[in-house]
């Protein structure tokens, strides 16, 4: 007695469902986003330290030459508000002098031999010894005319514990910072001062003129 209605119910339900047709349409939406293009309006020119006489160099320690500024500094114009940094690649292949400090007085910064990520090379002598070491200190940064600090971006994140405004050779980027975060703007400016230290005289070949050059490629990265 009790089973019959249940069987009828099942048949009715099945028959009702079988006449339903699908009336669904899948739709999709897509957009693509790019960072705004940025253009370098002013880039560092070549700094010429001229001829350096042997008697200007210390015999057993490194000798730092007077700090020189890149005239005009660096200016980058972006087509819309964004956050950027500068990532440096040492073109010397890592031939850096492993002794002696690099020092700037304003602001006061000292790079020691242990800070290898902040030392760029000047090439090697014929005897296979490093000729010197150099780096650039960034200062007087501005974003859209408003003063900013220089911060270090590590894998795209601001490292608040690293406030030394020097160029890095390990993939970290020097960036414009305001209010403890990457600054947002369109016009980015910064001044750059280069410091060079040469190897002890005893490590350089005697009797011949040595030509040396250091360079780094700066890459704009979006943060």
């Amino acid at each position, binding site marked *: 007695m009790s089973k019959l209605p249940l069987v009828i119910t099942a048949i009715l339900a099945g028959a*009702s469902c079988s006449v339903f047709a699908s009336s669904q349409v899948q739709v999709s939406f897509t*957009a693509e*986003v790019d960072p705004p293009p940025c253009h370098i309006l002013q880039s560092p020119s070549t700094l010429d330290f001229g001829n350096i006489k042997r008697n200007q160099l210390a015999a057993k320690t490194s000798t730092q030459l007077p700090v020189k500024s890149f005239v005009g500094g660096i200016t980058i114009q972006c087509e819309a508000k964004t956050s950027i940094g500068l990532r440096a690649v040492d073109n010397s292949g890592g031939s850096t002098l492993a002794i002696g400090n690099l020092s700037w007085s304003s602001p006061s910064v000292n790079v020691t031999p242990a800070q290898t990520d902040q030392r760029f090379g000047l090439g090697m002598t014929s005897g296979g010894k490093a000729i010197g070491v150099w780096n650039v200190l960034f200062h007087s940064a501005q974003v859209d005319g408003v003063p900013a600090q220089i911060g270090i971006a590590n894998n795209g994140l601001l490292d608040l514990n690293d406030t030394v405004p020097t160029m890095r050779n390990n993939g970290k980027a020097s960036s414009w910072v305001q209010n403890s975060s990457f600054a947002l703007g369109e016009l980015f400016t910064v001044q750059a001062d280069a410091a060079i230290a040469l190897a002890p005289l005893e490590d350089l070949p005697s009797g011949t003129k040595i030509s040396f050059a250091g360079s780094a490629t700066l890459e704009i990265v979006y943060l």
Partner: protein
Amino acid sequence: MKIMMRNVKFSLLLLSVILISINARASDCDLNISQPHTNFGTFSRGTLSKADSGGQSNMIGRKTSMLTIVCPRPERITLYYRAAAGSAADSYSLGDIAKLSLTISDAQADGKSVPLMYKQGGGVAVSDNVKELALLPDIGITPNTNEPVTTLVMQMTSIAAVNDINTHIKEHKVLNSIGTLEVVSE
């Protein structure tokens, strides 16, 4: 005997429930959209629009497509959109930095202009009849007319906008959103 009577009553009740449930069912109407894939193109912060007259700011783009529903017989039909909800209640996610708003408007039922209204759950209208309604997550839109409809044509406007203008855009990124338009008949 007493136990058997209870079973019969229960089965009849079950049958009633099933018969009622098929009042709101998947439709046998045909649903077509003129543009199943909408591409808003490539944008950057610089190309985002300022607030328009509708108050929409940081807009990536606006696109329009036509929805056509054709039923084999006059029916009371409701349109739903099923997709992941966005940061706001009236929008859907478009990638991880943007949102998508959908609006249904300019409905024509069997060639006549008709107002629209919301339907939710058991078929209770929750909004006044208007010419244009936002297509909200899991809330149906139906023509506000007493007559069942054979052909319903509507316009669907999709607006894509960035959630936060201060979002850091570090690299090229593709933003996607997928959903399903569904017609339910009564």
